[in-house]
């Protein structure tokens, strides 16, 4: 092979990207709360956290094409694990009182919080792995039903586990998920998803979605790849669940129900199944919606008209479905490559416009 990439260039780009992404995390973490009016902050925070969970689902559902309707359960497993660590282990380690600290009060507590989020992700990934082994032999509708069943089982189990709060769920989870935490988590999730999608593991996922039999015949170990996709996907969703629990302050078995799972599926589908950019946009939009609709109380007549979340949902769904085909066609991504390409296109167009004027 004649061509060898230049290490200086490679690591230069790498550092540049790292700097840019840190900036992006800082912008989300510190910029948004400064700029945005307060009443938008809570809905947006939910939207951003949903984006993490939806990005997780996007791996298995959008990229690998394995239809899962159980991701609220994976998020819930992450939420209960991280939340449990914070409410049961945290007080003993850090002497948190019954009211819980309003924020992370020491570096050690911050590390503990990060560790508990990761633990939530790992436990969810483990469940994803275990669920994946038997169910991923199924295809299409059958896999959807199996994952749906898994989600409902988890919900019922939690409903009947008194030590985890039973149907009332887990309460008094410290609200550690501030904007900076969300910024870092979302950017890290984006990096993981993007890097997987642009390398061999992600290509194997897509091959699986496109044609499993062909993929297998081309040396891709489809069963293993599927289980990996499921575990990774569940893990990311689990971290998102942990974030959500520490934002809301409570987490209930109802949050694991299939209705929630379907909402995540909607985010992925509306985002253009497989598109990371689209998933984030759709997740933020749908995630913000219920919170933003509280604003409607200012206009009672409008609230009467579209006061129900479901009304707006359905209209939004139809509109997004129509627009989606224009917007996210061909798995469009807001990527560095796309930016370079469109800059080049723009230059060409500008020079062409000059051309006839000169000639």
């Amino acid at each position, binding site marked *: 092979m004649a061509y060898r990439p230049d290490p200086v260039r490679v690591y230069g780009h790498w550092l540049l990207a790292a700097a840019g992404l840190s900036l992006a995390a800082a912008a989300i973490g510190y910029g948004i709360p400064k700029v945005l009016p307060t009443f938008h902050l809570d809905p947006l925070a939910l939207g951003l956290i949903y984006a993490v969970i939806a990005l997780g689902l996007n791996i298995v559902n959008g990229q690998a094409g394995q239809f899962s309707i159980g991701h609220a359960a994976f998020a819930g497993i992450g939420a209960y694990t991280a939340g449990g660590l914070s409410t049961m282990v945290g007080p003993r380690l850090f002497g948190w009182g019954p009211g819980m600290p309003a924020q992370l009060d020491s570096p050690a507590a911050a590390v503990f919080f990060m560790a508990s989020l990761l633990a939530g992700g790992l436990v969810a990934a483990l469940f994803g792995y275990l669920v994946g082994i038997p169910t991923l032999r199924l295809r299409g509708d059958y896999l959807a039903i199996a994952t749906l069943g898994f989600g409902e089982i988890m919900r019922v189990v939690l409903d009947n586990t008194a030590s985890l709060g039973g149907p009332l769920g887990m309460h008094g989870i410290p609200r550690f998920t501030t904007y900076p935490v969300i910024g870092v988590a979302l950017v890290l999730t984006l990096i993981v998803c993007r890097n997987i999608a642009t390398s061999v593991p992600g290509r194997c996922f897509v091959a699986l979605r*496109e044609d499993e039999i062909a993929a297998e015949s081309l040396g891709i170990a489809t069963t293993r790849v599927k289980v990996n996709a499921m575990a990774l996907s569940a893990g990311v969703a689990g971290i998102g669940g942990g974030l959500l629990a520490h934002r809301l302050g409570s987490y209930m078995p109802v949050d694991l129900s299939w209705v929630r799972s379907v909402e995540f599926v909607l985010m992925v589908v509306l985002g253009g199944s497989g598109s990371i950019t689209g998933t984030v946009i759709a997740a933020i939009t749908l995630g913000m919606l219920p919170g933003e609709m509280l604003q409607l109380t200012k206009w009672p007549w409008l609230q009467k008209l579209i006061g129900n979340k479901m009304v707006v949902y359905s209209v939004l769904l139809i509109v997004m479905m129509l627009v989606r085909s224009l917007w996210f066609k061909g798995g469009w991504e807001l990527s560095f490559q796309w930016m370079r390409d469109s800059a080049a296109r723009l230059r060409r167009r500008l020079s062409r416009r000059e051309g006839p004027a000169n000639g």
Partner: protein
Amino acid sequence: MASDPGHLVAPVPDAMLELQSVSRFFGGLAAVRNLDMAIGRGSIHGLIGPNGAGKTTVFNLITGATPLSSGSIRMEGREIGHLAPHAINRLGVARTFQNIRLFKGISVFENVRTAGSWRSGYGWIHGLVQGYTFHLREAELHQRTSELLDEFGLAHRAKEPAGALPYGEQRRLEILRALATRPKLLLLDEPAAGLNASETDALMQLVERILEQYELTILVIEHDMRMVMELCDTITVLDLGEKICEGDPAAVRNDPLVIQAYLGRGDTVDASDQ
């Protein structure tokens, strides 16, 4: 004479692939029964027979897509009968499909690159970190893919979705995609199906070219007799799951059992097969 089992396996001293009394039953139906076959290194071996003769089942057995009922399949002396399809591909067997199975939604380039990806030489960690090793291996993969597309005239289609290609080019792309796994043995399942005469000629040239250039051995199922007769060194004829004849094209063309399998038999012919 040509169907005498004794001399069928013998004339292949250096076999790439050997099938020994391979059978596959679907319930009571013997899709393939007691098939012995050896494919010489560097040869083009044809597999023909009327519809339902079990040709594609033989492909599925070799590639592991369908498990064996009994018998053994050896690739370069190594038993592969029990392996999963992806493992068999990694030992150097690649195939195309009768009803083209491209990754239709992704680009031509991605189709070929994905196929070569298990040879990329990096895994999850490098993919996640995307440091120097990743970029080096990706550059190599990119170059191999571009070379393959350049060489076989699909470079100008590289960015188009594979499903948007004309039929003939889809066939070609499927062969390229199989080649991207750098196989030693390539199985082509009716590569000329649906092609017109000039496209078939182009295909034959392509097959002969890749045979030499990539030091391949090729096993081909084909209904286009002109192509089979011109291309193949050896031909095996299947009928109702059993081998009825094997030999060079001239011998096969004149074999009475083959003619009978394809055209049926008149009342005057005695039912002496089996």
